[in-house]
């Protein structure tokens, strides 16, 4: 095809130059991506709270988590719970004035430190969050150093409690309790023999999946090597689907968030994989059903440290107030967000107006919340804390009750 004579040396040199140039291009590209990700910090603020300098009386509390981005729904749920708690606090008119500042991390661990710094310069005394485990790992050390109280309603990575952070608190059961609960659900309720465990390689998803991987064999269940990690940003999971299909499993466990879970499950079903899909609280969201399609999602299980609050009077009052304020039913972790905010607000109305005063109030008191009665242990983690099972039935996620009672 090439009738022309070429000069190899020149061609090679040009080739090398181009190759080198391409490397530069790639480097520039990566740097730009990093810069762009770092600089977009859309801190949507509630009303006038950012524009106004903090007045002498108004204390600032914050919400820290994803309000935009692919997994923003959980953050929005929590933030709405916080907003409801604050509105109720303000309408009572007791205690010091409190305003809310929203720190939208997009769930991105690399954006979290910058936002945490912003919370410090805003003189925020306490935050509800960070919502996810990954961003907690990068933001909490900064909160700890600055002495800002954090109460996370949803970051369930067990290792967060092991850093010796004295300003850190958590009001949900962690993955060390959720992982074994999922494993016993798979082994005893579903009676599975062969299970594929897949995760999204995030701090949260891999953390919980690893616990399931190590717990299942103790119940006599085989964990096949197929699957392992997927890229949550990818759309093509055919390699994982093929491997799982060939491994012939009864149950697929997925550790991660709803967006990728929905796509993965859909591609599994399209390829004819019939195994029951079990996942974690990151998947406990109607958008999981939307992403997978109702027919494919039906019958799937999710576990969650979040309880069903509709059974109690306080829970029902919360649900109707939430519905009235936001025109949607409370979502996953809305109630925990409400509880976390109320814990902070109780401390403030009890006379604690500095971060360190709030912190010691939290350590020494018990808080009757709508999800559970909260008492913090020495590490800041919640004492006790049950795991609930949910199943997708006819397109909606319904509570089956505590896992411990299901497997009895």
């Amino acid at each position: 095809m090439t009738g022309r004579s070429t000069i190899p040396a020149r061609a090679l040199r040009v080739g090398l130059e181009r190759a080198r140039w391409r490397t530069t291009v790639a480097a520039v590209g990566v740097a730009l991506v990093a810069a762009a990700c770092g600089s977009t910090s859309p801190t949507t603020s509630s009303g006038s709270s950012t524009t106004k300098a903090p007045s002498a009386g108004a204390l600032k509390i914050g919400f820290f988590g994803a309000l935009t981005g692919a997994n923003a729904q959980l953050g929005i749920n929590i933030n709405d719970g916080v907003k409801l708690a604050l509105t109720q606090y303000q309408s009572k008119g007791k205690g010091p004035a409190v305003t809310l500042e929203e720190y939208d991390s997009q769930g991105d661990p690399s954006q979290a430190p910058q936002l945490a710094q912003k919370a410090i310069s805003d003189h925020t005394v306490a935050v509800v969050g960070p919502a996810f485990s990954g961003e907690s790992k990068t933001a909490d050390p900064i909160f700890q150093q600055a002495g800002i109280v954090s109460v996370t309603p949803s970051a369930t990575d067990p290792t967060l409690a092991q850093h010796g952070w004295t300003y850190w608190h958590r009001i949900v059961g962690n993955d060390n309790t959720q992982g074994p609960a999922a494993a016993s659900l798979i082994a005893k309720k579903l009676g599975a023999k062969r299970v594929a465990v897949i995760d999204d390689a995030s701090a949260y998803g891999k953390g919980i999946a690893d616990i399931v991987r190590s717990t299942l064999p103790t119940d006599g269940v085989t964990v096949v090597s197929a699957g392992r990690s997927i890229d949550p940003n990818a759309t093509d999971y055919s390699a994982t689907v093929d491997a799982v299909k060939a491994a012939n499993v009864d149950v697929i466990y997925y550790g991660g968030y709803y967006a990728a879970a929905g796509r993965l499950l859909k591609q599994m079903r399209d390829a004819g994989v019939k195994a029951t899909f079990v996942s974690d609280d990151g998947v406990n969201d109607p958008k999981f059903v939307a992403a997978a399609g109702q027919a494919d999602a039906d019958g799937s299980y999710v576990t969650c440290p979040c309880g069903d609050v509709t059974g109690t009077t306080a829970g029902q009052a919360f649900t109707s107030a939430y519905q009235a304020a936001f025109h949607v039913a409370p979502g996953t972790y809305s109630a925990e967000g409400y509880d976390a905010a109320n814990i902070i607000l109780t401390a403030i109305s009890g006379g604690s107006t500095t971060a360190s005063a709030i912190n010691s109030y939290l350590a020494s008191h018990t808080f009757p919340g709508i999800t559970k009665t909260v008492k913090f242990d020495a590490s800041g983690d919640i004492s006790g804390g049950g795991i609930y099972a949910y199943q997708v039935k006819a397109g909606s996620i319904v509570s089956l009750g505590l896992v411990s009672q299901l497997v009895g």
Partner: protein
Amino acid sequence: MLHQFLTLFWPSTVDGLTVGAIYALVALGYTLVYGVLQLINFAHSEVFMVGTFASLFTLHALGVTSALTGLALVGVLVVCALAGMTGSAVTAVILEAVAYRPLRRRTTSRLAALITAIGASFSLQEIFALRYGRDIQTFPRVMQKTVLFHVGSGTVRSDKVLVVATALAMMVILDTFVSRTRLGRGIRATAQDPRTAVLMGVNIDRVIVATFILGGLAAGVAATLYGTFYEVTQYNIGFLIGLKAFTAAVLGGIGNLRGALLGGFSLGLIENYGASLFGAEWMNVVAFVVLVAVLLFRPTGILGEQLARARA
């Protein structure tokens, strides 16, 4: 490990060819523009993204909510493909006119054009994110994913056949266009030596616009196939696929049309074979190690770099 590879050989081959076909179609856009302008059009991933949205909106407009068969299916797919092609081609032309042409007139710096490309890419992503949200948008199921036959343990499904067949047809059409038509000759002439091409009476501006349109048309077809196959899109859907397609173009020999085809299919197969050998989490690592290895021995890719020479 080897046992796993052998078990998964046929499924990996089928899936590798399917995703490779989409890579190849998108890679055409990178390769054509590079061949003519020596510019890596990083915003091409967004040209693809706009195509997916265009065909999604067409599906909504047509009121498709469940799988179709027969003539209705063909009709809807063709209309969607036309919408995707229009969306992508128009985006590519606007990009050329707004982002690249003014720079080309004022400076010869390739780096400036490259930065503009990256900037245009982010702008388009954010425009779509702000307009349509950052959540995943789901396509309705247009085509029943029927199992047609088996190759070994690999399942050949109707939608996979559609993807590969359409992509191949589009390649042949483009290849014929570039090698047989007058405008195609202009493209090759410009790629070879722009100055001489001008002296021979080639209208460079027209050639460049044509190049962007061709790349856009291929991306539009890829976008529709992608939507039919994966049934999702998002404001940043182009990022990963654009990166893969760019890799495919480099692997095959950037600037070379048939290289894009070869690169796309090779990358798809390498990824899936790599995944079956080492696990899916190693998929991208394997693919990029192979890319580096190929470039070490053949710095200009498998088929070499020149659009004009390879086709001369």
